[in-house]
């Protein structure tokens, strides 16, 4: 994890489903059980994130959850959408 407010952490190794993953923020370490495979460099949810809630990394929003995300889920383009530059939404379109 990169900031206290983050609800995702970055995998620094490939993580297999069911692994109890030590999640580090500074010197503090907490544990999150991986619900699915998380490849190196990808994000794991460290808290439940309801649909339409902000996904927080670097202490800032990196987009909105497009479905309910459980603690331990992989977070990527299948359940996270950028909120910026969405011309399709701005013109009244639906996703």
């Amino acid at each position: 994890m990169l900031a206290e407010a983050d609800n995702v952490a970055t995998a620094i190794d490939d993580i297999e489903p069911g692994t109890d993953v030590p999640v580090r923020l500074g010197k503090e370490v907490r544990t999150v059980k991986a619900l699915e495979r998380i490849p190196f460099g990808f994000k794991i949810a460290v808290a439940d994130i309801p649909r339409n809630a902000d996904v927080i990394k670097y202490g800032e929003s990196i987009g909105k959850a497009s479905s309910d995300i459980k603690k331990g889920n992989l977070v990527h383009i299948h359940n996270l959408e950028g909120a910026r530059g969405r011309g399709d939404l701005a013109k009244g379109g639906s996703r």
Partner: protein
Amino acid sequence: MKFLGYERPDGSAGIRNHVLVIPGGLLAAKIGDFVEGTKTILTADSGSGRTSRDRETIARTLIGLGRNPNVASVIVHSAGLGTGYPELEPTRIADQIARSGKRVELIEVAKEGSTFRALEKGIQVAREMVHEASRLRRSPCDPSQMAIGVKCGASDTTSGIAGNPVVGYLFDRIVGAGGTAFFGENTEIIGAEHVLARRGVNAEVSRRILKVAEETEARAKATGEDIRTVNPVPANIAGGISTLEEKSLGAIHKSGSAPVQGVLEYGEWPPGKGLYFVDNWMSMGSIFAGYAASGAQLVIFQLGGGGWTDKDLLSTSTAVVAPLMWTTANPKTLAVAGSCIDFYSGGVIENGDSIEETGEKLLQRVLEIASGTLVKVETIKHVDPTQIYLKDSPF
């Protein structure tokens, strides 16, 4: 935290000691063939058919490269920018550089009678300048005399969590010691401009940061393509980056945490010391020469993944007078491009090393390079053409 540099008449300190011949073209190239220790800029753009804003950018770039502390003395010749535009008058360029107190010689082909006579004079003057420069000695210089510029590229997760923050730490140390640091890439603050704007030293700087993001987006849209449907690029997504916001937030970490003193145009000389955001283009063929023209003695490319090999790294030394240092935190990149990588920050991920301790090591490496240790790509005698960042269409 001192480094050994060449003191210049204007109080700056060079980390290299070149003689610069500008503009590029036949005369500069042939002087370079004959005389060891000279540099020139390779660029096809002579200013012909360019708007006054773009002609001024070309002039500013040439003048800035001449003023760069790594340059001991300069030859300006009249055989390249012969378009008659006032911005590009060789006398103007020579005069502006000479204000720095360094020796500048103007060689005018018309006055010499022919290109070959001008070449003969150019070779003799360049030899004299190189010999004069060789008599200078390095002496201990203060970090406040240091200026560096950074670009990140082929960014992946290792960039956001290790590579960029380690460079950010270096930036904080140099700026904290009274030095100057540049970062830029106007497309890659979109989505993070609000975060960056909070770091503006005053409301005007914050407003200008937001304006750069807005203008860049508007120009992108004017092409008929929405930039944000193509960014993050597929390679970013394959590396774990999900959205443009995430990419931009990772990218701005390379600037550290210091307040942003101002927003500069490409190649613009900063009005003071500290951290500056440059409204520039991310292309590596362009950005580094711009930083050098703003006075950076050293430029850094913080590389992620993308499968780049040492061949890709070798062919990109386009800062003209400033050495290009490569850093990465990606072990796969280190494995295939190691012969060109000057600093590896992957220990942050592999061993849990702290950003601070790794950043201190990077600072030491930078001071060594500033004191004369070559960057890896300086061992290769090749420079690619520079694309000066011009914003308008040619007519």
